[in-house]
């Protein structure tokens, strides 16, 4: 497959997954804001910006930080390259460039999503319609992934789409888990209290795994178990281990030239995530662990780019 084409497909899938995860992060933030006391409010609102690395840009665009402004910035702001709006736009743009290699259902899904998001009134998303909007974004992402899985030929286009989807999801799961770290900074005294419970529960819900947690662990919500679920529980499809199962599977099928360094790092990460000792992670600090994982994921993205997708 042409490198340029693979690049488009890889990014098309990443952007769509990124839009979904932005919706998830905003969803959990909206929830946390409801329960938070005034002093943690600011931390709650800052967390999405710090995990997407857009604090600076936000300050340029807004004077004060409140939920409607945050949602406006992260959901609809076309000047924010990682807003849901921008992601949907670029997913569609990438698809447009390789339309002849996609199935018509894939193209139509992305095109219709883009046309719809353009028509959604701002006030509805930043107001009472926020949850509905986040659900819609998640649905469109589910639809796109399902349509892709269900219609595309098993070949390089499929492989690079899967690779993009799961690399992005791994990145986002790590970031969402890290949200809790950002919030904890200012509410250490509350560990184990009601607020703490709601925060962990909201976090689990944001990755659709509140029920999964109950089902698998039949236990109260303990931070260490939440981390275990999101990092190494491969039965949970948004966990890092599950994502890297898919990344590895996709890379196994991709035949490249001089792609050893990309594959080596991916397989290393896969092994590390498979045999991680969660107690050790907590002793060393969850945030430090996640930061290291995120760095490796970033590095892997760069190596994939160089090995298959041409220079950026």
């Amino acid at each position: 497959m042409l490198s340029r084409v693979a690049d488009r497909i890889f990014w098309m899938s990443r952007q769509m997954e990124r839009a979904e995860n932005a919706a998830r992060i905003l969803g959990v933030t909206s929830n946390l804001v409801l329960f938070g006391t005034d002093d943690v409010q600011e931390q709650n609102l800052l967390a999405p910006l710090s995990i997407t690395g857009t604090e600076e840009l936000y300050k340029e665009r807004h004077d004060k930080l409140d939920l409607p402004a945050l949602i406006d910035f992260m959901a609809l702001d076309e000047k924010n390259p990682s807003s849901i709006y921008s992601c949907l736009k670029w997913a569609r743009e990438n698809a447009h460039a390789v339309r002849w290699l996609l199935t018509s259902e894939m193209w139509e899904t992305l095109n219709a999503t883009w046309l719809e998001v353009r028509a959604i009134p701002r006030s509805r998303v930043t107001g009472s319609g926020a949850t509905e909007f986040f659900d819609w974004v998640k649905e469109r992402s589910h639809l796109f992934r399902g349509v892709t899985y269900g219609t595309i030929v098993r070949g390089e286009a499929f492989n690079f789409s899967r690779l993009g989807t799961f690399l992005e999801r791994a990145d986002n799961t790590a970031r969402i888990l890290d949200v809790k770290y950002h919030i904890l900074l200012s509410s250490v005294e509350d560990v184990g209290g009601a607020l703490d419970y709601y925060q962990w529960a909201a976090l689990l819900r944001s990755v659709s795994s509140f029920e999964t947690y109950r089902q698998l662990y039949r236990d109260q919500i303990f931070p260490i178990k939440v981390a275990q679920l999101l990092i190494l529980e491969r039965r949970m499809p948004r966990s890092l281990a599950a994502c890297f199962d898919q990344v590895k599977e996709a890379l196994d099928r991709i035949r490249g030239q001089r792609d050893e360094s990309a594959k080596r790092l991916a397989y290393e990460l896969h092994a590390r995530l498979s045999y991680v000792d969660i107690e050790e992670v907590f002793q060393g600090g969850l945030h430090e662990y996640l930061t290291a994982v995120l760095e490796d994921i970033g590095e892997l993205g760069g190596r994939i780019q160089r090995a298959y997708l041409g220079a950026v």
Partner: protein
Amino acid sequence: MERGPYDEMRAADGAVRAHFRPLADWLAETPAERVAEKRREADLLFHRVGITFAVYGDAHGANEGAERLIPFDTIPRVIPKTEWDELAKGLLQRVKAINRFLHDIYHGQEILKAGVVPAEQVFANEAYQVSMLGLELPNRVYSHVAGIDLVRHKDGKYYVLEDNLRTPSGVSYMLENRKMMMRLFPELFARQRVHPVEHYPNLLLETLRAAAPPAARDPVVAVLTPGQHNSAYFEHAFLAQQMGVELVEGSDLFVKDGFLHMRTTSGPQRVDVIYRRIDDAFLDPLVFRQDSLLGVPGLLSVYRAGNVALANAIGTGVADDKSTYPYVPEMIRFYLHEEPILENVPTWQCKRAADLEYVLDKISELVVKEVQGSGGYGMLIGPAAKKSEIESFRSRIKANPANYIAQPTLSLSTCPTFVESGIAPRHVDLRPYVLSGKEVKLVPGGLTRVALREGSLVVNSSQGGGTKDTWVVD
């Protein structure tokens, strides 16, 4: 009373011509609502499939990503097989002679020595490429894909209006229009045997592979596009997909060790044949326009070494220049020793003093064209033009006579077409596509373009023209 334009469906006495009768009967029997509903369905389908004509404004403007449909008319243009066979013979003859001409001007130049075509007509032509001198091409083919524009005058005869020998477009509409008609009106195809055109992509692939360097055992073909912002991008993608070959942009290609390669996820892959849909000037920044980002540095050296084929070849523009066009009948006589089957439109060349005088005198009755113009731009239709337009053209012709030719205003034939008020005659032309590989071939049909505005003679899609399916019937 002066005779009106030739009506493709009805004879002078109003009777429906035999080859149009099944269609006319069907139109009379079918309720208007059903036809209207089908027309809406066609619009919807074309939009969904994305057979659009991109109109890209500035990158951030309101028009960003705007795509316009080329209007599709659901009443086909019907041509009887016997008439088509004669046309086809004429087209094959014409394209053979043109390819002989192109080979000749880059080799022995016999036709110039014989004085049949003036030497300056070739050497002073911008499109003449010195780099093609002496280069041997497989099968001696230069214009592998030629689109020949035909019109039918009120005398009922077909005339060649122009030859498109560089990168003729529109064939995807021929194919998609047929697919759409079969989907919308299957019953029509049961009434009449319509000769198929669907094998065009197969013939095209065969033609391109025949152009490959002889050393390439299993030639790899790719379609080279300027990119998704080009107005014909849909067609480039469509043809690549139909042939099952890669659609590449200049940045996907590079030259290494004397061969052309494409960058793939599994490393470099050699390419033997490029079906290029970009102009000569943009092919290789080392040789042609240095600011071109669309081409491939070093491509020409690979081409000259015979390690890659380009379809169409470089420098074919000499032969489709409007000032070369008047010589094509002579080329047929010179190379093939045959009489031309298809006629040219009589053409005055303003570079000749006598012709210039005539053109300036009769300008309000003539069509004046720039010799390098295309797409309906740079052209004056005398009878339809305002006085001020005529005067401005007159001074432009005087300033640079060699840049203009003139032809009588042809009365293009009409074909029934859906318009707002119902069905009405509209002017049409016809572009069949001729493929030259080991043999010269064409599919029975072509692209019929229709001027949708009443009385208009301009069929170009960039100027509000539409398209129709073209049927060759037994």
